[in-house]
């Protein structure tokens, strides 16, 4: 029984990472209708910033997260305002292509700057954990989950309790009407993308603490983001939380699925995703937009 509990806990902790990763992706996709294939690359930028601060200045990774957020916010704003805004009214697939090209460029730049060496942030407390009986909850992972939940909370607050958030939701609902009431579309788009990028940066910071990072390590996270966002459903923060935690749980529990080899874990996760969509075409919590 405690073995199962351990698996569930590990699944939730992994899910926390997925939530952090998917929040920014979901915001950008839901509001701006942009499929950001460069999301993984932005995550890696955050990871490298955290790593550089840790390796050169010995800054604790969790303390560097706000810095990741600020740096990625600026980068995201510039990217959206300067480049992505140019294709915002084009069909969905064009942003897909654009961000694909962007991804190539960012990953290559990271490769030039940092080489392909594997880096990792290993703090003195990286092995410690909360021991509850025979179940262990590693502190670093717990920290990651908590940060993810805080991020989700911040996003919810922004969207539902601030003017900016109201603007973002308005633009997401009906862009022309929003323009009619005086919202500066370009600025708002850039702001939304910047927030999404900031979240990606923070997720990257967390990832660098428990995984080794290299410029190409972001691509799997983009793939997982697709799955998480759609599994939960577009449109709401709570949907992304549910989607992320669920996906994490499925992946970990899939490794101990009886009957099939544990190598099927990835296959199981994606099959579950497809099955959920067949039964509930809007995702677990998606709203009928």
């Amino acid at each position, binding site marked *: 029984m405690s073995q199962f509990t351990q698996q569930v806990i590990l699944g939730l902790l*992994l899910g926390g990472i997925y939530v952090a990763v998917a929040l920014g992706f979901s915001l950008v996709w839901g509001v701006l209708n942009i499929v950001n294939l460069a999301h993984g690359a932005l995550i890696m930028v955050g990871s490298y910033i955290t790593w550089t601060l840790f390796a050169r200045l010995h800054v604790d990774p969790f303390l560097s997260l706000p810095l990741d957020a600020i740096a990625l916010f600026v980068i995201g704003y510039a990217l959206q305002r300067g480049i992505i805004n140019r294709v915002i009214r084009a069909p969905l697939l064009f942003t897909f292509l654009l961000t694909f090209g962007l991804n190539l460029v960012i990953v290559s730049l990271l490769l030039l700057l940092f080489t392909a060496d594997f880096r990792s942030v290993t703090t003195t407390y990286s092995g410690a954990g909360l021991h509850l009986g025979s179940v262990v909850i590693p502190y670093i992972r717990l920290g990651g989950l908590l940060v993810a939940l805080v991020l989700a909370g911040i996003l919810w607050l922004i969207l539902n309790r601030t003017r900016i958030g109201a603007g973002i939701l308005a633009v997401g609902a009906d862009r022309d009407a929003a323009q009619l009431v005086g919202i500066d579309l370009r600025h708002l788009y850039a702001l939304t993308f910047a927030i999404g990028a900031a979240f990606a940066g923070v997720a990257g910071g967390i990832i660098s603490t428990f995984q080794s990072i290299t410029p190409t390590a972001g691509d799997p996270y983009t793939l997982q983001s697709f799955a998480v966002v759609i599994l939960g459903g577009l449109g709401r923060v709570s949907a992304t939380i549910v989607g992320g935690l669920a996906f994490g749980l499925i992946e970990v529990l899939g490794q101990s699925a009886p009957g099939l080899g544990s190598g099927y874990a990835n296959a199981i996760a994606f099959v579950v995703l497809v099955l959920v969509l067949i039964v509930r075409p809007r995702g677990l919590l998606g709203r009928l937009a």
Partner: protein
Amino acid sequence: MPPVVERLYSKEVVRRERFALIVGAAALLLTACGTSNNAGTSPSTGAPIVFGAAVSLTGAQSKEGGLTKQGYDMWLDWINQRGGIVVNNVKHPVQIKYEDDQSEANLSATLVQKLITDEKAQFILGPYGSAATATDAIVAEKDGIPMVEGNGAAQAIFNKGYKYTFGVLSPANKYLTGVLDMAATLSPKPATLAMLTANDNFSVEVAKAVEEYAPTKGIQVVFSKQYPAAAPDVSGLLSQAKAMNPDIVMNSGHLAEAIAINKAAKQLGVNAKIFAYSVGPSTPDFISALGPDANYVYDGSQWTPQVKYQPSFYLSVSDYVKAYQQKFGASAPPDYHVAESTAACLAFEKAIENAGSLDPGKVRDALAGLNVMTFFGQIKFDNRGINIYKPMVVEQIQNGVHYTVYPAAVANGKPLYPTPAWSTR
């Protein structure tokens, strides 16, 4: 049609084998005579020999691909300093033309074709990784160009009867069996083993060999599971393994997973007596990423700077290490990926000299019959084309430094056994 094609191959196989034995014997005789004949006459310079290599300089395996290139460049400098490879008393300088296959196997095959067709490569040096090696071997086979590789250990490549591909490294099934041999000599002897395997062709072969070999050494495999090669997190599997209380925890995978598993082992409090990973601990990245947590980890290595082989040509082990550190400005000695790549070049050099010709068919036959001792160990290929004659060694990281701990004949340290519990470190 396919069965007919296969039958033709087997006839060819037998013919070529016999021819190879004769040529190999003749080559050895010639080499023996050649050394005494060459005294006095200075060779003239001939046209450059072009080698082609498609390595992963970008993409998921850019790190390992970079090490491969370093190994090739080490030999390139040395051979050109001496004027080149000697063929019939003519020195041919060497060129290596590189292409970046971006860690994609299909692209690797196209680039090898490009090297052969466009860039006039006469011989091919292998890529990094068993996946790319498998596809490149097919191009080499179709074009009749010999390929020698040092970085693809999956035996499946060599079981297909390809005649033009040779691997200087020990095959996958030997990677972790050395650790089992070592474990059998330790006391208290470990009794149980847990195996975590990435499901790619190389790692699965490594794991299978361990599962078959462990019982013969009195070690019971209590847990063995695979994870998808791109799994983000294997701590779930590791915690399942922990429940079985294994004495030995092994991972068959690549560098990223080795780092992740070691971190997870500390977080979950998995206190095995031996941690052994197939790939990863031999690279400097492993130590720099994990810091003191990297200590006590074992790995099976194709080569370490402590081996005591007496080479018949090229540099000795210690000279090689010094040359590497000088050329690349590194404080750490080269890891085995560099050495096995250099060994591939050495195999070509000797085979070309033995064949006394640059004809691909003759060089291929010379390779098949090659038997030479180098700083990397014995280079000799079995009838499938893989080097089963060189043993693997076991390394352990002690205080942030690699020590060779088994077999005793080449060891420069003793295994620190058992690995202390995480909480006591």
